């Protein structure tokens, strides 16, 4: 078989040239494919990065807007304003003599006000990133094996 192939190349030397050209082209195609994939991945990464930066800015802007709206709402509902509004509607502050008190046995007054937790917490508490974005191939395989074995 080997002898027959050698003989064929001797009879037609252009076959050698075509083979080397084919190998070079194959290598070039592989390089181009890898480069293309690299470029595509980087383009996606850059796009995601831009989106992330944009969303971070947007988040900060929304926090500022929420804060401003909260402050405006507080401005509109201050005790002083409520007193003025009540007065404009014909109400006046009640005195003890205006009120008839009834003691209702078993009545439980509503529980007091509880402040909301402050905005902003570490990334981990915001949900963070899926392991798919952070773990290495080895870590992924270890996790897969452990899941199959029911360790986690």
């Amino acid at each position, binding site marked *: 078989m080997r002898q027959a192939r050698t003989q064929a190349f001797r009879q037609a030397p252009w076959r050698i040239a075509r083979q080397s050209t084919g190998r070079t082209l194959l290598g070039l195609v592989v390089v181009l494919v890898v480069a293309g994939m690299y470029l595509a991945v980087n383009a996606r990464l850059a796009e995601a990065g831009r989106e992330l930066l944009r969303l971070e800015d947007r988040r900060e802007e929304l926090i*500022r807007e929420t*804060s*401003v709206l909260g402050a405006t709402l507080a401005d509109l509902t201050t*005790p002083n304003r409520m*007193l003025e509004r009540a007065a404009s509607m014909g109400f006046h502050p009640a005195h*003890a003599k205006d009120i008839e*008190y009834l003691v209702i046995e078993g009545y439980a007054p509503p529980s*007091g006000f509880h402040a909301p937790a*402050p905005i902003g917490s570490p990334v981990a508490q915001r949900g963070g990133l899926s392991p798919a974005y952070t773990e290495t191939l080895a870590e992924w395989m270890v996790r897969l094996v452990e899941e199959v074995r029911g360790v986690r």
Partner: protein
Amino acid sequence: MTNQGFRRGRVYGVMVAMGLVGAGLIVQLIRVQFGPYAPVFDARERAGNARSERVRPARGLIYDRDGVLLATNGTMYYIEIEVRQLTETSRKEIASVLSKLLVLPVDDLYAQLTYEWAANGQFRIRLTRDDPLLGRLPIRLDTTVATVLKEFLADPLAPDMTGLDLVPTSQRHYPNGPLAGHILGIVNQEGEGFFGVEGYYDDWLSGKAITVERTFLPPDARLEPDPPAGVNLVLTIDADIQQLAEIALSEAIDESESESGQIIVMDPRNGEILAMAAWPTLDPNDYEPWLVKAEDDESAITPAVAAQYEPGSTFKVVTMASALSAGAVQPNDVFVDTGLIEVGGVPIRNWDYGAWGPQTMIGCMRYSLNVCLAWVSSQKLGASTFYNYLTEFGVGQLTGIDLAGEVAGQLRTPRHPEWTESDLGTNAFGQGVSVTPIQLITAAAAVANGGVMVQPHVVLEVASPQGTYRPRSVVLGRPVSPEAAQTLTGMLAESLEGETRQAAVVGYQLAGKTGTAQIPGEKGYDPKWTIASFVGWGPLPDPQFIVLVRLDRPKSSPWGSVVAAPVFQEVVERLVVYLDLPPSPAVPMAAGG
């Protein structure tokens, strides 16, 4: 066209297209290198691919006990100028627009825009304005003005404002203005809290700033962590009661023509401060003038915990409670008042310089007899016992209230080198001893609360990302026995129904004591001015509030019974409504009826 000509045309077409693309690239390169934004690109290139940025979390919010927002964060904008982007036109138009919008001198703005900042290595500046009190301050814009400027920046037909940038920053905002301003304290432009709650809890409210790397390269962008947030606080203050106290105080100041004053409302059972009003009022949104005042008088911003004074007759509550608890006197023990007693060689007289004849201890308190109380302290209690009780009541010590700037007051005990025996007599009726309003109300609250003295506090709940925390009430001590406290409360209730009817409220049994204190100066006591006060609690027999009224230098009348007692009455009449305290007796009714 021949086939060959067509091919040639195609080749030329591609060459022209490529040439145009190449020319475009060259133009863009020239624009980046030498165009108006060249300095910005240059600065960014020098800064590298990322910059370190100090990120501060939003300052924690402050609520009253019912959820009324007392302190929040708004957004303000600084005006920053990228000096290398300025053109001659934009300099003029920025100065002109800002001058009209903000009513600022155009010359001052133009001078800042034309100054050679770059020669000093400054390429980005923050525009400032001149403040008559505090010198030059950065110009800050509210959201309305900032929106107008942003529209100018976005509109190509608007004035040329090249080089101007609006930088948002968090600004503390107090929606209720001056309401509870003295309790809240202030926050400066750097976000640091001073005085009051803002000062005391500054570390907790401000959270923790962190440094993050802000990349300019999108592929390197990462989700940055938020800085650890500051806590939110719920105060024991009730905004409605605070407002009631502030209105009552304001009216009292007007009527009595007093110089200043305070009202404190507290729950004696747990030390919760329900209201703490002070006049003149402080609007923390506009705190700069108060910084100047505080330079002269450190107690100006938080007078309830820092403005010490000689309490006068309200201090007799402490003296008589001590004597009753020590068993030195009984309510019906008789003292014959001759109108004069000498203690340590110093003559002591009554407020009216009169002799009141035989008086029981109830009468001594009812008529507020200095001679009688000096007799009690000097001859019935003795220095050692008397000062031990005062120390137990916390006189001359910090109460530990969670407000910044508290002072301890002054008490000279026999161990003090300047103490004299006459102090034993004068201290009994509140002279020669200095207290703060919070100290006096805390001591009196011990009597109202059956002898148990609870630490006053203004924070009810702390909400952090880790969870919610409610500080417990702290018992400071039991200075007097429950029996003595109950007996004294009964004596004061009787006296309030008799001599101090200006403080009585129909349907509610209350106890209280007036005070008219002289003001010490460098040359002895001021002959003209007094500090009029009243401390009272109720409803008996299970007091749920205690109120202290203090009016400094009233002009209409110097007496606590005339100017301070009616203020107590006015406050309590409304307070019982807010606290849902029915007049006794109430009719029981079945649930669901």
